[in-house]
């Protein structure tokens, strides 16, 4: 059976518990960050993104934010240490 991809609008209309269950079962983890002492985890679900804001990490969810724009990736991309990646790549060449 082919699973129907959920649209952002359909996801928003789901009850909260069903949203969490859908994220748990089908979303792909993208990254984690801290915003004002709050842990935030970004998931990709079908063609959109969901950020989970925790009151207590992996215990109590404060709220979620959804978006179909890749702008939501920006703070996660900023965390990537380019120098470290570059050094790693240079090191691999040297091996």
């Amino acid at each position: 059976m082919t699973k129907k991809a959920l649209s952002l609008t359909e996801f928003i209309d789901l009850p909260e518990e069903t949203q969490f269950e859908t994220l748990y079962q089908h979303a792909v983890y993208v990254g984690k960050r801290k915003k004002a002492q709050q842990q935030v985890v970004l998931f990709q679900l079908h063609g959109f993104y969901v950020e989970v804001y925790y009151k207590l990490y992996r215990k109590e969810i404060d709220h979620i934010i959804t978006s179909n724009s890749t702008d939501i990736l920006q703070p996660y991309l900023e965390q990537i240490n380019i120098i470290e990646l570059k050094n790693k790549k240079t090191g691999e060449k040297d091996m």
Partner: protein
Amino acid sequence: MTQSLPPKSLVLYADDDPDDIELLSEAFQVYSNNVELMTFSDGIDLLRFIETIDPEHAAPCLFILDINMPRLDGKETLRRLRRLDSFSDVPAVLFSTSSLPADAAFAKNFNAGFVTKPLHTNQIHLIVDEIIEHCSDDFKNNIRKKNGNNK
């Protein structure tokens, strides 16, 4: 009279995320009378540790491996563990942030379980039970008996 305590079962857990380590350590507290959870920040540290132990006397009863780790990820760690004669049969679980079917298939190929990290608190104790479910029957019976749970 001196009474020696039975040795604790050793569970080895590798994860680069200190928050996830803290979460699972807390969840394993319920088994703290009979399980010792040792944690490592990546697969290399875990593999280095098992080189130092004598499998005849202190064989781990379970490996829990985060998939995304720097230096050596959970999948490669699992692959290497399965090449080691002394540890090739020890139950293992890939502990992942996503339910990717490809990762689940990888785990199955290497005779390991696959468990997704919890999204919120209602799932954490179910997840520890799910992890324990991959251990040997002897281990499960032993800890359930000691915890007064005869499931």
